[in-house]
């Protein structure tokens, strides 16, 4: 008796693994909107040093330039007014005791700055601090005023300083802090003019496929 041929059971259906198509790699946020390279602008930086915001106005960013101008000049001169106009100066330090740093005896401007380090910050407000430099260059202790700017930003005498600190409130001291902050903030403004803001926007009308 012939036996029926044994039927080979069909192989169970094995699901064929399907390889998903590789997903496109996600672009980092910085590449998502590729901006044109930063164009450095040293002329605008110099203008913003001379007068806060002038570099931004030169670049066509009028509103920001005006904000920097009124904000920083407002803060600087408000601070000067708090100190009755006697808190921005660079002293002539020739007659003052010697100063040594790392064994080196200081002279000239470094010595003057060691007696008035606040001026290192005030200097960056630009031309508004230049009268102090002129007063330093032409200082004559026998005169009560300088040749060009009179008593403006001239180093006060010891008696004047004593009077200010003894008779006034603390506004004289707080005033020079305001002037230093205004000068140091202008460093940020100079950098904004030089290289743009920290978070840039695409230029108007610019498309990512535009050639740079």
């Amino acid at each position, binding site marked *: 008796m012939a036996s029926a041929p044994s039927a080979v059971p069909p192989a169970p259906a094995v699901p064929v693994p399907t390889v998903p198509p590789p997903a496109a790699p996600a672009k980092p946020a910085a590449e998502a909107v590729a901006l044109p390279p930063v164009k450095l602008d040293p002329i605008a930086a110099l203008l913003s040093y001379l007068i806060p915001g002038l570099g931004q106005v030169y670049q066509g960013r009028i509103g920001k330039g005006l904000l920097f101008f009124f904000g920083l000049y407002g803060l600087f001169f408000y601070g000067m007014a708090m100190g009755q106009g006697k808190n921005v100066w660079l002293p002539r330090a020739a007659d003052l005791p010697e100063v040594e740093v790392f064994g080196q005896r200081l002279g000239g401007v470094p010595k003057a700055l060691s007696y008035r380090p606040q001026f290192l910050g005030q200097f960056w407000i630009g031309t508004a601090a230049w009268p102090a430099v002129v007063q330093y260059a032409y200082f004559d202790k026998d005169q009560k005023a300088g040749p060009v700017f009179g008593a403006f930003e001239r180093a006060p005498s010891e008696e004047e300083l004593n009077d200010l600190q003894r008779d006034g409130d603390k506004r004289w001291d*707080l005033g020079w802090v*305001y002037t230093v902050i205004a000068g140091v903030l202008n460093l940020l403004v100079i950098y904004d003019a030089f290289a743009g803001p920290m978070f840039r926007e695409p230029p108007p009308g610019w498309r990512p496929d535009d050639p740079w």
Partner: protein
Amino acid sequence: MSIYWDLPVLLVVVSLVYAATRHDRWDKIVREAVGWGVRIAAFLMSIGLGLYLLSTYL
């Protein structure tokens, strides 16, 4: 006049100028400036409150 009346000038100018060096769009400048202003004011007030409590109860 108390020196504390001079502080808002500093707070407003520092907040606005710093925010304007980080952005070019006015809506972002104002939003960031308000954020910095609130944080600076809260910091100053917390120090003032701490000093007040120290001077009153210690």
